[in-house]
């Protein structure tokens, strides 16, 4: 297991380096002088010249990359053009909202996705199965922002149960009750992903239920519920655990949209606003952070997978 972990960690390095090259090149692919782009429209020619020297933009490109990578490794992702603040602290400001939103979303996904998936698989072929798996596919076909807008219309504007937008920090007045601001956004974000988990739990449980050990368990006269949970679901969970890495990527993508619909001060909305404001250092920084996070999560998922299913690390 240790050897496998080290092997996986080492394999991560080249991909990470290549991704960092892409993120670095991003600033250079935008038409125009990178120094002028980084400083924004209000910069004077003197500022631009100074930054060109400071960033070593007159140096060969590989030297610039080495300099940039050195800064990144020391936690310096540059300065936001819009906020005039270090990029890392701008990202940090959005982290609370995004992390809480992601946690609540995962809670809904597990709460709805897994039991409904089990129900769908155990009632395979009946109308219950058709309703749940058809319903799941329908939910996976709904644009996130459309669902969000209608949830606001019904539960905020119509019934007045939940606030429609924004999110005050849980360290502000109200404390944990401020989490009510995140209920509608997290449900919006959970819907398509829970739908995928439902279909995945169903499909992998059906796969496992055809195996010999399940037939043996049934032949022994075990209670069907016990067979479904202990023998089928626990084995099916391996495939479901593997899908959580994919779920993270989907969450990031859909969080960009959801945070925009609900005007949440998170990292997803920061990406969109930075793009519209042409705040390139922030875009570059956020992308780098997300890519690194995504790779770490994929690694953790793979390690968990190897732990759940010892056959994986032996290969």
């Amino acid at each position, binding site marked *: 297991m240790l050897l496998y972990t080290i092997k996986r960690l080492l394999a991560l390095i*080249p*991909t*990470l380096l*290549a*991704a960092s090259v*892409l993120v670095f090149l*991003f600033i250079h*692919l*935008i038409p125009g002088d990178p120094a002028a782009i980084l400083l924004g429209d209000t910069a004077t020619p003197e500022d631009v010249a100074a930054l060109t020297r400071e960033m070593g933009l007159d140096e060969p490109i590989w030297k610039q990359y080495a300099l940039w990578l050195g800064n990144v490794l020391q936690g310096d992702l540059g300065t936001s053009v819009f906020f005039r603040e270090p990029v890392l602290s701008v990202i940090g400001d959005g982290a609370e909202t995004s992390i809480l939103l992601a946690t609540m979303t995962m809670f809904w996904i597990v709460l709805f996705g897994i039991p409904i998936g089990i129900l769908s698989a155990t009632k395979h072929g009946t109308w219950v199965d058709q309703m749940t798996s*058809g319903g799941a*596919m*329908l939910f*996976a*076909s*709904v*644009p*996130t*922002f*459309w669902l969000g*807008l*209608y949830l606001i*219309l019904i539960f905020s*504007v119509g019934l007045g149960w939940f606030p429609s937008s924004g999110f005050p920090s849980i360290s502000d007045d109200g404390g944990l009750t401020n989490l009510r601001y995140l209920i509608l956004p997290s449900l919006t974000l959970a819907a398509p992903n829970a*739908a*995928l988990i439902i*279909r995945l739990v169903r499909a992998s449980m059906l796969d496992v239920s055809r195996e010999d050990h399940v037939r043996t368990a049934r032949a022994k006269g075990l209670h069907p519920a016990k067979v479904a949970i202990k023998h089928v679901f626990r084995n099916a969970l391996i495939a479901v655990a593997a899908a959580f890495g994919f779920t993270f*990527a*989907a969450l*990031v*993508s*859909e969080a*960009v*949209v959801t945070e*925009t619909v609900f005007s949440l001060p998170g990292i997803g909305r920061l*990406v*969109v606003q930075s*793009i*519209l404001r042409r705040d390139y250092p922030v*875009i570059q920084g956020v*992308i780098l952070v*997300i*890519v690194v996070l*995504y*790779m770490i999560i994929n690694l953790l998922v793979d390690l968990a997978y190897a732990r759940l299913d010892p056959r994986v690390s032996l290969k």
Partner: protein
Amino acid sequence: MNMLRTFLAMFRGRKLATIGLIWLCIVGLAAIAAPLIAPFDPLEIDPVERLSEPGLPYLFGTDHFGRDSFSRAIYGARMAVIIGLGSVIVALVTGGLVGMLSAYFTRLGHVLMRGIDVLMAFPALLLALVLMTLLERSVTNTIIVIGIVYATTTARILFGMTLKLKGETFVDAAICSGAGHGSILFRHILPNLISPLLVQASFIFAFAQLQAAALDFLGLGLPPEVPSWGNMLSEERIYVTRAPWLLIFPGALIILSVFSMNLVGDAMRDSIDPRFKDDIAGV
């Protein structure tokens, strides 16, 4: 005729998928005959009639510019088909070539597939957003960007499938009879991959609709004047409390079309070569 019969046989006993197929045919017809069906010019502004309720002569009501929503929805179907087909072509051609060549030429594959790994380290919509910041908002650029995003998954799937086929006896036979690389790849291997490719195409078509709508909503997709379902939602969302129907129709059209495409893809996947079935992840 024979192919059509095989295709229709996939839908036997699948009521929901058949309804989905019929709906997609309707969307396709609306896309082709948009100028004949649409009662008004989708771009014509009529301030007097702004935000009219659904009824006659405006079946789906009018938007805040007084443009006829029904006509815009019909032209939106055309845009949906163009974006869907365009993204499918870009994704299958680029991703397919990279995947097949990588599996066939092992050394080249080491390089190309690592490149795909790097691109896949970026979550889909994020990659699309980054690419859109470098490009102008236009129909072509939206198609290219969505196509590239799904080219990565297509490459990985085709890589796996080509690897499986490469070891088959018929490939050895082709090599022995002196066939060149091009002939083996495109005349012997590719024909076996057509049906899984079509299944993959149906899922890309569905995903592309959602991605394009999300890009439109964020103001980074099609130019705002283009009548697309995503733009209709994006432009009218601030009027949702005064005119909720403006979001119901385009939203329902997107959901129905994506749902239908997923159902059709599912039905097709169940009837392809079982060796490839697990390679294609749809919804």
